[in-house]
């Protein structure tokens, strides 16, 4: 199981690096990077702190500490994904409202343009 913990540490490090690079290149906004960084740091810390992991595994009633880590981190990432779904839904609503507004304004502009041409 030590191999699994090392692998998870590697995943955490790669995830942190990816998030930081993405923020630096403006591929991801800072406010959306926070939850990913939080989840990745939790994974990194827990995968290196065996006593804490053993304690948490005992609380959860899971015999293998690495499995407890996977369970915890899985839940954490589910929360991150849920939060992103909420954000995406709000953005979609805003996007639809904006597209409708643009279409209506374009419609009024076209009508005004035609009216001016008719008068002129």
């Amino acid at each position, binding site marked *: 199981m030590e191999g699994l913990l090392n692998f998870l540490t590697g995943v955490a490090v790669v995830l942190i690096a990816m998030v930081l690079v993405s923020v630096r290149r403006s591929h991801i906004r800072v406010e959306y990077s926070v939850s990913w960084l939080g989840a990745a740091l939790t994974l990194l810390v827990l995968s290196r702190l065996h006593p804490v992991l053993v304690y948490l595994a005992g609380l959860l009633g899971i015999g293998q500490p690495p499995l407890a880590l996977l369970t915890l981190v899985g839940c954490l990432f589910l929360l991150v994904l849920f939060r992103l779904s909420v954000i995406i839904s709000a953005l979609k609503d805003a996007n639809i409202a904006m*597209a*409708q507004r*643009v279409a209506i304004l*374009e419609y009024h502009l076209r009508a005004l343009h035609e009216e001016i041409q008719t008068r002129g």
Partner: protein
Amino acid sequence: MTAATGPGSLLIVIPAFNEQEAIGQVVREIRETTPGVPVLVIDDCSVDDTAALARAAGAEVLSLPHHLGLGGAVQAGYKLAFELGYEHVIRMDGDGQHDPRYIPKILETLRTSSCQMVIGSRYIDGGEEHTSFARGLGVRFFRLVLRPILGQQVRDPTSGFVGVNREALSVFSRSFPLEYPEIETLVVLQRRAFRFVEVPCRMRRRLGGRSTITAVKSLYYIAHVLLGVFVNVLKYERKHKKR
């Protein structure tokens, strides 16, 4: 199209996505049947000549900058109609399934009844001959689901041939189901104590194009609409409790 001309003004709204095979004929038929009534086609970012053909046939066109889906397109039409001051709006499909000869009957019912919405129903007086078996099954299923929620029977909950008055327009221009809106719309109205009535209509075959609801999508449709219905019911409950 200008602002509404006075009390009782009517606008025909047609959401259309890649309907170039039918849209011209649909608009012409409406203009022949109801001369002087403005027709607004909401082009949901079609990649064919829908917008141009609709304009050529005499309709006004509201062009959406990107594809919003049926609910988004219909709501855009409702928003514009509300802003322009229209009292009544009748929504029709752009594929020719809805016969414009029923427009006067829907309008008359809107004006004379105290209902906020009138549905053109193919299941009164046997107008369902061009309805697929799968759709028929779905309709029966949703009748059963909606009966206890609405407190009245709705025979054709999936009909897109719908007339609304300004009260309903006011609600829909602010809040409207975005995907597969027909059934959810009934719940939205019912939650606001609005009323609807059905009038018999005969549906026709599509003049062109294909339905966007495939066999696989129909399963997604059922799940999506069921969820939408119950979410709307829950929304009401929460609001009710807060009072």
